[in-house]
Structure formats: structure tokens, C-alpha cells
């Protein structure tokens, strides 16, 4: 009998193992059953619509992709804080329970709502700032 709290993760672990075997099996089957691969200077060239390869692939790319990644990081890290808040806030608002802070002070739904209000105002201000500065433009 496994511990009830570990059990789901153990089941997920077994699933991951089974799927890894399936994926490795597919890679191996393709290698084993396929005909012998022949290499040549033309065959080994990257397929770029039959044009001769002119420059190295891993050069600088458009900075706007980097910008999207930065904006995503800001937003997603902010949203990660909202996930536990959503659960706790629903609990406090529906049952009227108080949540103890780190030093033991009990707080109700009003405190939680105001705190998230300030947090969200900052987030919205950030989005508006990005919008006005043209960080969301692509042309």
C-alpha cells in the first residue's frame, strides 16, 4: 500500500516510463527496418528548396522574438502568483474563513482582494505601458 499523496505521482511516473519506451521503440524500429542509409555531399546538405546553402544557419535572428519571450516571462511569472491566490481566495470568500499570514495574523477576503487588486493594477499598467511604447507592434 503506497502513501496516498505519493500514489498519483507514482502512477504518472509509470506512465512517463511507458511512453518513453514507446518513443524509443519508434526511433529504434525506424533505424532497424529502414534500408541502409547512404550518405553523399548533396544528400547531406540541408533542404532549402534546392538552392545552394549560402550562410551559416545559427546567425542573429530578429530581436522581436526575444521581446516576445521577455514579455511572456513577465506575464507568466506574474500569473504564477495568481494560481495559489485563486484557490485561497475562493476558500476565504465562500466559507468566510480567515487565512493566517506568515506571522499568524488572520486575514479575510477583503485583505486578499485588495492585495490582488494592487498586484493586478501593476500588471495592467505594465501591459498598457508596453502597448503605448509599441512593444506589441509587429510591422
Amino acid at each position, binding site marked *: 500500500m503506497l502513501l496516498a499523496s505519493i500514489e498519483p505521482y507514482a502512477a504518472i511516473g509509470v506512465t512517463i516510463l511507458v511512453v518513453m519506451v514507446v518513443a524509443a521503440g519508434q526511433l529504434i524500429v525506424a533505424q532497424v527496418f529502414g534500408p541502409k542509409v547512404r550518405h553523399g555531399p548533396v544528400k*547531406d546538405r540541408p533542404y532549402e528548396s534546392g538552392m545552394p546553402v549560402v550562410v551559416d544557419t545559427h546567425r542573429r535572428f530578429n530581436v522581436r522574438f526575444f521581446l516576445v519571450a521577455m514579455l511572456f516571462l513577465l506575464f507568466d511569472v506574474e500569473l504564477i502568483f495568481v494560481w495559489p491566490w485563486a484557490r485561497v481566495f475562493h476558500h476565504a470568500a465562500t466559507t468566510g474563513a480567515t487565512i493566517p499570514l506568515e506571522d499568524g495574523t488572520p486575514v479575510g477576503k477583503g485583505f486578499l482582494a485588495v492585495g490582488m487588486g494592487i498586484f493586478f493594477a501593476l500588471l495592467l499598467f505594465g501591459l498598457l505601458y508596453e502597448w503605448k511604447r509599441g512593444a506589441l507592434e509587429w510591422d
Partner: protein
Amino acid sequence: MREFFTSQFGVSITFSVMVIGALLGITTYCIYFERKIAGWVQDRYGPNRVGPAGIFQLVADGIKMVFKEDIIPGHVDKVLFLAAPAIIIIVSFIGFAAIPWGGQWELDGHLVNIQVANPDIGLLYILGVASMAIYGLVLGGYSSNNKYSLFGSLRATAQMLSYEIPLGLCILVVVLTLGTLRLEHIALAQTGYWFGIIPQWNVFLHPVPFVILLITSLAESNRTPFDLPEAEQELVCGYHTEYTALKFGMFFLGEYAHMITASALISVLFLGGWHFPWIPWAQPEATSFFAVLVKIGVLGGKVVFFIFLMMWLRWTLPRFRWDQLMRVAWKGLIPITLALFILTAVLVYFGLERSIWTLVGNVVIVAGALLIAGSFGREVTGRTTNLPPIPSGPFSPGVGGVGASA
């Protein structure tokens, strides 16, 4: 021995192996249905040569792929090149583990969940696994040393990152409404009725997040109209240009598996999962083996509906342009979902999260968004205002050309 297989863990393991086996078959047959639907939309037959109505076409294709030359080109980074399709397959198949397929089953006097795993953070697990699919696409494109592949993977990254924010916010709306991250509890919370007839599915409370979740799922699984990463006319095949034989097939398998996970997640979050009104076996009280089969059938039916919808959309809608795609995410979906989240939080504060006010708020937010977009006009929607005039003449297809003279 029997004790192990009737315990929750034993059932989970058995069910996990069964689900993976079934999914391998179903995802393969999704490709057949995709081609049949494409044929139906475009008024042609689709595959009809191998077996009756072409149902063995996929078997033939699979055999062909296995026996094709499995090229690892000389210029690629071998480890990452082989890892990419494996990562795609792994992450798109393990997402199923947290989906509650069949409620509970009474086995040897105790109840077991027909679910591979029922962790208390099931929703976070699915989100985390789904966003790991980016790694497969990025590594596949980056290791290929092909410019088309690199561009495809760059686009895929930017697109999936952008659409993950509205996706997360839509799911947060459900979490705020029901107060749980456990998918089984989310399904159970939707089994009641309003006025004794309307099932308490979240879609009736929050239709707008439901639609936005559907849109973002399309974008997350790189399906048309969001298939910029593999736009054939621009990038050959996108991130899997250099892949051959079964490795090429693995990318397809991963895409369809991702579609099925997304459909099952939408069904559980917004359409009540295995619950269906008027069917006595699809209620939470029914725990017999037959009820489990009916529940799996009900959830499967909802999944099939969404998959059909996605395929239908693919063969109906044209592709977005890249700047339109990014604008829809950052200037359209993200502000709307942020507003929906604030609305839900306010309603939860006043204890109204499952009342008619959610519907009112949804309508008000959509109307407001349309009004703002309309009043700002071209500034917000970004349409080009000063297109060059179309040259007119006897042979020009523009204004005053052939069309005007007819």
C-alpha cells in the same frame, strides 16, 4: 495479486497502459479522419483505395514509414535531432494522465478512480506538460541546421508563448469559480442542475472563456488558422523539414495527441467531463462497470466533437498573417481574458460566482471590447489605411478592370 490490481494504484497502472495503447491507435486514425474530412470539405473522395472506404490506409502508411530510409543528415546535431521527436511524443502522451475519464468504479467493495492519476494539482500538471511541447519544436528546428526549420521553430516559440497567457487566464477563471485544481472535483462540481433541467456546466456560466480556450488550444497545437510555424508556402515544412521516415510520423502523432488532450481538457473544464443529463449511467452516483463505460463514451463523444470542429476549421479558414496572429493574442485575447478574470474575482467576492451575473458580465465585456475596438477603429485593429491604388486598365483585375466592364 488480486489485491494489488483492485487497489487504486493497480487500476491506475492498468488504465495507463490501456490508455496509451488506445491513444496510439486513435491518434493514427485521426489522420485518416482528417483526410476524409478534407475530402468532404473539398468535394472529393479522400483515401478510398486500401480496404473498404480506405480504412486501412493508415496501416499502409505506417508500414511505409517504418520501411523508409531513416536519414540523419550529416549537418545536424545528432542528440538533439533524435531527442526532439521523442520529447514531442512523450509530453503529448503524458498529459492524459490527469484527465478523469470515467468517474468512480466500485470494485471489491471500495471506490477507485478511473483515472491514471488524481493529483491535487492536476490542472497545473497538464498546463506544465503542455508547455513543455515547445522544447520538442524548438530543438527540432534548431538542431536541423536548416533555415526553414529555424524560422519554423522561432515562430512556434513566439506563438505558443503568446497564446499560453490567455490559455492560463481562461483556466484561472474556472479555478476561481470552483476553487479547486483537482480535475475530478471540477467534473463533479458541474453535475448539478439549474431549474432541474439545465446542467451546471461552466460553459453556461462563462461562454467567452470557453471560446477563447478553444481558440488558444488551436494555436497551442499549431493547427490552422494558426499553423504559421509549418506554413508550406513559406517554410517547406517548418520545424520538421529535415525529418524522414517514422521520425516525421512522430511529429504528426504528437500533434494529434496534443489535440486530443486539449479537447479532453476543454470538455472537463467547461462541458462537465463525463457528465451528461438524462443518462442515468453518466451521473456521479452510478459506479457500476457499465456506468464507467458509458462515462468514458460520453467524454469520448465530447472529445470527438471538438476534434471534428478543429478539423472542420482547418479546412475552412485561411491562415492568419504573422502580425495579425501576434496582435490577436496580445491586443485581443489577453485584455479580454484579464477583464474576465477581474469580473470573476469580483463575483466570487460577493458570492455570485455561479449566478446569472457571470453571463451578464461576459456579454458586457465582449460588448465593451467590440465598442473600444470600433471607436479606435484602425489604430487598434492595425489595418493598413493607405494601400497603394490598384492600377486600372483593360487587363487589370482591380477596380474598373475586367469585373467592372462585365
